């Protein structure tokens, strides 16, 4: 299923219609890897030719095909995509069972866990001087909150933030619970039902 959503096209200077795909398959993930990794390789080559180098975030090298192949066939592991003109601008894998809140007052209540979230390389300031789209993470997290609401989890959401993204999750009103040695020492962030209501408003 697909839904009409929106993204900010920073080249055009306004918000444009985009499409949310609710579950992608391995073929889709492979196609997206081809697109993203080829773009990235070209930018790396360009930087090298100009005698500079790019400082790339780890997730720029992710192979989504492997992630989707590992768990994408299971119902509780949907991978969502946001597209503009049929090209994936961002991907997010969710886990919708067996994950529980850690925040005081919410402890033990079920939540939707964001396993992986990343944007296309042409949207990343670390890769290009003028990133194309903004809103990828905002719209995908909105979809994660809606999934949580649909499941009766009241919008509760958990994720491990890559270090450069922490200010964004704080800006959404998520609570950071500190570095988690079980998850590459990344900062665990959680959204409460009240924070979810404020976010979708």
């Amino acid at each position, binding site marked *: 299923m697909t839904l009409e959503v929106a993204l900010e096209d920073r080249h055009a200077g306004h918000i444009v*219609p985009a499409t949310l795909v609710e579950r992608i398959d391995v073929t889709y993930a492979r196609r997206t890897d081809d697109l993203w990794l080829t773009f990235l390789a070209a930018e790396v080559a360009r930087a090298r030719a100009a005698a500079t180098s790019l400082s790339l975030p780890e997730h720029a090298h992710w192979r989504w095909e492997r992630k989707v192949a590992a768990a994408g066939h299971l*119902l509780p592991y949907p991978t969502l995509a946001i597209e503009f003109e049929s090209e994936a601008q961002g991907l997010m894998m969710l886990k919708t069972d067996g994950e529980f809140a850690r925040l005081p007052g919410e402890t033990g209540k079920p939540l939707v866990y964001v396993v992986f979230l990343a944007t296309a390389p042409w949207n990343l300031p670390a890769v290009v001087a003028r990133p194309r789209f903004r809103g990828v993470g905002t719209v995908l997290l909105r979809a994660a909150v809606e999934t949580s609401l649909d499941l009766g989890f009241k919008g509760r959401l958990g994720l491990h933030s890559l270090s450069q993204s922490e200010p964004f999750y704080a*800006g959404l009103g998520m609570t950071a619970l500190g570095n988690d040695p079980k998850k590459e020492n990344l900062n665990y962030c959680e959204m409460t039902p009240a924070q979810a209501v404020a976010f979708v408003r």
Partner: protein
Amino acid sequence: MNFETMRDWLARKLAHADDTVVAAGGTSLDALRQDAEARTVTPAVLADVPTEIGKVVRYVREQQGWSRRELADLADIDEIEVVRIETTLDPPLAPRTVVNVARVCNFSTRRFQQLAKHIAIHEDHAANAVQLRFAARSANVGSVTPEEFDAVRALVEVLSEKALDQK
């Protein structure tokens, strides 16, 4: 939700929190694979299922990681029907239930109906019929041997052959 609503909402959110460098992760591919594998079917989960039809449904359900509720929703049937298939001996199933469950489990409707004893079994298939009738009535023995587990897997494979449906 329409585009205009989404556009206005996104503009408000982006003004408040810039998402340019958003990313989340921390789960290794190995951990992901381990969790997926932990959900694959083990003989133990089939031990309490009294019928072969129940075993194949339970097998596919476990393999897909579906709860009974999720399978019921996908097949557009009551959850109690799934419980009945998986836990009762000789379940009285509505024809619609059988057809819908076959569709969701990606089984040949014809073969699954046969297993559920919902269609008359033709004389020509007498040998096959005996086998299926036996299979449909096999009682719970409290545990599943590797041979029995293989037999269930083989039955799932047979049911997944849909060539008969095309005719």
